[in-house]
């Protein structure tokens, strides 16, 4: 089977399984409505915390409120897409531990697609909605000289950010083949990374920013390209073209996550649980 037809098979299986989960959720409509609403409230409070901070200060790390809202919106929205699409892979460890991963391995569909669609939860749209609202507000409030390139960069950031976060989810899932109780570690990188990106790089230590740029390239989700849009100095004095690197970074992240996934699955199948 070629890579292309594998990808097609994967998407098809993903759609089928996600559809089943949506219908399962709808078996408990009230519970769905409540968790979806709760999700919006909780993620909403996240931004309220930032608003509260700005009631005391005018700038944070040299960034104004609309600028921080811009960072926040980009990070939350792209993370929301990744979480909706593939966040369930973070529960792989539980499936490895209780042995139910085996039931997925005897199906004629790529395991990654099945794991990603596992417990597909529409309520995660709440996070995307909230992020998009903040982003929309920021775009209106920002005092930026919009050029066509800057306008185009916003959707590119969202797509690439979603892809980069997805790669982090997959890599985290792959790690759980080896360490089954590592879902907390994964959460530190995914949810933690997302929260980190909601603040400007200038408030963090240089070592941390360096790590998030070169080792674990989350900086390309918003920090670097947003610096271009906002006309701010780049973190770590990166060259100007770095703002346009997100697509390349996203591809590289996918490639390494794919390799990690393969290695993880291979080690599971040669060691069992």
């Amino acid at each position, binding site marked *: 089977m070629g890579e292309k037809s594998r990808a097609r098979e994967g998407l098809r299986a993903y759609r089928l399984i996600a559809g089943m989960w949506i219908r*399962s959720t709808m078996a408990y409509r009230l519970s769905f409505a409540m968790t979806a609403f709760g999700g919006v409230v909780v993620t909403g409070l996240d931004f309220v915390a930032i608003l509260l901070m700005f009631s005391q200060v005018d700038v944070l790390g040299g960034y104004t409120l609309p600028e921080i809202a811009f960072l926040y919106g980009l990070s939350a929205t792209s993370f929301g897409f990744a979480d909706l699409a593939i966040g369930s892979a973070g529960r792989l460890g539980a499936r490895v531990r209780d*042995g*139910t991963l085996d039931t997925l391995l005897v199906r*004629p569909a790529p395991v990654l697609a099945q794991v990603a669609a596992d417990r597909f939860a529409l309520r995660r749209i709440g996070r995307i909605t909230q992020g998009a609202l903040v982003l929309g507000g920021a775009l209106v409030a920002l005092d930026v000289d919009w050029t066509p390139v800057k306008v185009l960069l916003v959707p590119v950031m969202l797509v690439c950010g979603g892809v980069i976060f997805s790669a982090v989810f997959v890599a985290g899932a792959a790690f759980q083949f080896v360490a089954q109780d590592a879902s907390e570690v994964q959460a530190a990188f995914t949810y933690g990374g997302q929260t980190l990106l909601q603040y400007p790089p200038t408030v963090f230590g240089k070592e941390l920013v360096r790590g998030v740029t070169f080792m674990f390239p989350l900086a390309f989700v918003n920090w670097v390209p947003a610096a271009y849009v906002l006309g701010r100095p780049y973190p770590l004095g990166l060259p100007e073209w770095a703002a346009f690197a997100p697509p390349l970074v996203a591809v590289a992240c996918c490639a390494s996550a794919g390799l990690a996934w393969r290695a993880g699955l291979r080690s599971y199948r040669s060691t069992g649980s």
Partner: protein
Amino acid sequence: MAAAFIELDRVEKVFDVRKKTGFLKRERRQVRAVDSISFTVARGEMVGYIGPNGAGKSTTIKMLTGILTPSGGRLRVAGIDPSRERTRLAHRIGVVFGQRTTLWWDLPLIDSYRLMHRMYRIPDGRYRENLDRLVELLDLSALLDVPVRQLSLGQRMRGDIAAALLHDPDVLYLDEPTIGLDVVSKGRVREFLRELNAERGTTVLLTTHDLQDIEQLCSRVMVIDHGRLVYDGALTGLHEAGESERTLVVDLERELPPIEAGPAARVVRVDGPRQWLAFPASESAAPLVARIAAAYPLVDLSVREPDIEAVIAKMYAERAEQADRAGKAAS
């Protein structure tokens, strides 16, 4: 003789087990879960695969279904190397894990079948035909619209078996298919499997702890212990291999000292006028009964067939003893 459908040639599975010995220290140890097993199963056979917990049964099944990659040896199912072509093999096999349902908990049973229909790309006509047949044979028609969480264990097992057969697999693996079921449900499942095997020629390989499953279904049985195949053959042969004994229960008119009935039989228990005599399963009971009837005041008697469980337990015990002796000799 039909061609071999499942082929194992010196298949091994070695696990690296890490044991915690300190805060961060781990001791590595190799465990041979499956140790050079060879066997073939012809198309249409129905084979029981038994052994104590941790003997390597599940590991073998996992290698046959492509879940695990063997550490050594050659393995083929329908000409396919399971671990290399897992998804291609998936279309040819059906798997039922007795303790893990693959049905959708919150959805009506029929929804799980519709998913199978699409995921396995079963042609519409064949899906309809298979579904109708399975619903009838497994008595599922009243359950199709019931959410799976409301089904009883026996109903769910029947539902799971149907789900594993919708795509017409050539071979069906069942891991503990009757675990936890009541007598009626067990009977139903067994009857269905017998028909499936007889009428559709589906090859069936089942692991079980319930020896009645084996007695009622399988003409061939394989016993695995410590990762090795210790017996492979007809069920009847298992008795001889295990040197099993039958029991003659004798009711006498009154309490008497233990019966003396020749060298082949010995009294194993006395309880008032009733006495239990053990004799080799391979010998006829008639001469023994005649001898006792001639010498003792007999009221009633009955013969008990050896319990296959006891036979296998004895087999395990003997092997453990041998291993023990070998171990002592080596040290």
